């Protein structure tokens, strides 16, 4: 039945491609989370009314974020080829996609982090100051815990954008389901392969969405 409907689909190859996509997604989400959180914190803390209010630092961070968000992802990959080569030692394969994915994803997530932090009640920050809290305490014990649900739903949105980026990266040699759909499906006229790749990607997206929504809801005690 399956072989009749999808004559060109090789299960082994599909599993390899799925694994590559999952690998790229997982590590790019991790990297994006770390760098995006740092950038977002920097944007918020140096911004107007922030505890490290600083026009210059804020301007530089914002400029970095805006520039990298403005570059279309496919061009960003090409632009980063020398950097990737230097960092990873190759420009092919799932690992080589990570620098571009993270540099593309982190600024996007940084803006979502900034929005999440702005939602934290100013009164609570003030209360912590009135208790004699250090900046570090305010960041780690007030700002981040109080914005966790928004940070997680932001990360979910970012992760889904990253899954779609991995497919784009695939087309220029990163591997994964995007790569597979393009080279083995589209170029060989095997549309059953394209279809199965699509279904697999959609399933991955749904799983991430589900996990994100669940975690965000669980942690929200408001």
């Amino acid at each position, binding site marked *: 039945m399956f072989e009749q409907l999808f004559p060109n689909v090789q299960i082994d190859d599909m599993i390899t491609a799925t694994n590559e996509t999952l690998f790229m997604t997982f590590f790019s989400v991790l990297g994006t989370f770390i760098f995006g959180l740092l950038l977002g914190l920097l944007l918020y803390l140096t911004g107007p009314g922030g505890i490290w209010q600083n026009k210059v630092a804020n301007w530089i961070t914002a400029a970095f974020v805006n520039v990298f968000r403005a570059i279309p992802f496919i061009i960003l990959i090409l632009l980063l080829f020398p950097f990737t080569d230097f960092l990873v030692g190759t420009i092919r394969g799932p690992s080589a996609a990570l620098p571009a994915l993270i540099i593309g994803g982190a600024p996007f997530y940084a803006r979502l982090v900034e929005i999440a932090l702005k939602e934290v*009640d100013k*009164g*609570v920050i*003030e*209360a*912590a*100051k*009135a*208790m*004699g*809290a*250090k900046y570090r*305490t305010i960041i780690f*014990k*007030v700002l981040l*815990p*109080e914005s*966790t649900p928004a940070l997680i739903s932001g990360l979910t949105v970012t992760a889904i954008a990253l899954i779609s980026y991995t497919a784009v990266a695939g087309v220029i040699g990163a591997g994964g389901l995007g790569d597979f759909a393009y080279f083995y499906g589209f170029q060989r006229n095997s549309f059953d392969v394209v279809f199965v790749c699509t279904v697999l990607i959609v399933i991955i997206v749904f799983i991430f969405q589900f996990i994100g929504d669940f975690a965000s809801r669980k*942690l929200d*005690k*408001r």
Partner: protein
Amino acid sequence: MISIKGLSKVFRTKDQDVHAVSDLEATIDSGEIFGVIGYSGAGKSTFIRLLNRLEDPSGGTINIDDREISSLSKGDLRLARQDMGMIFQHFNLLWSRTVEDNIAFPLEIAGVPKEERKHRVDELVELVGLGGRGASYPSQLSGGQKQRVGIARALANRPKVLLCDEATSALDPETTDSILDLLVDINAKLGLTIVLITHEMHVIRKICHRVAVMEDGKIVEEGDVLDVFLRPKQKVTKRFVDQVMGDPDRESSLSLIKEEYPLGEVAQFHFVGERTHQALISEVSRKFQVDVNVLHGKITQTQKGAYGTLIVHLEGEKEEIERALTYVRETSVEVEVAFDV
């Protein structure tokens, strides 16, 4: 305990300088409940935030417990703040933490070890009457309970001063009273100095020992709550006193009373902190051959005893009435007989 000299705060905006607090002087004694009342924009909120330097003063000095708050370095200020508790109009609890963890937060900041923290939190939960709710999240509590958590949190590091920033303004009247009772209780039990700001005279009347009235960034009137109630000098103070003793028809009711009771004597009894002769009316009619008829009035309780005015009609022999009035005059109750209508 707290002495404030020449305190001022200017907010510079594009168009103009706003003098939120200007050249303010005040002394607050140890263990007293000091109330600051004023309408919004009077500068009272800025004033209380200057006390723990949530706002940095533009000029003047604040001395709390022999510590010059206004000139502390950042690190010392943090330590000084741990000796001052603060509660807020909107409670400002961390919604991501349980009641217990909220109360533990200032202890974490002060670096109290875990075991001791737990012990202290249990104590505080009991003190503010939240036994059994320790594991709840703030969103599961009512406004009054949230403020109790706020109070417990403010008391965690055994501060010497408690600052209350409109602490009851977001609560309904009944809850307000229970929170005020708690504050009085804490003040008595722990000997804590409490500075509170409010726009409700009711709050001042109920718990404060001394009151300062603020207008345009300055204290325009200050004194014992009873004195201020009895002899308000400023217009703004009179308006606040009317909030609780409000009596707009007094003039017209007085003339009616005079017409209604041409015989005997109509007198006004002013209660100013009377404690011993609370049952004065029945005392008078028992001791003397007079009938006392209460015509009009309002008595309210303050931290220093009963306060208010009763208009009474005394019926009986003229000399007997005189003797009764003389007796009343010997208490702290002031008597006015031939009052103008």
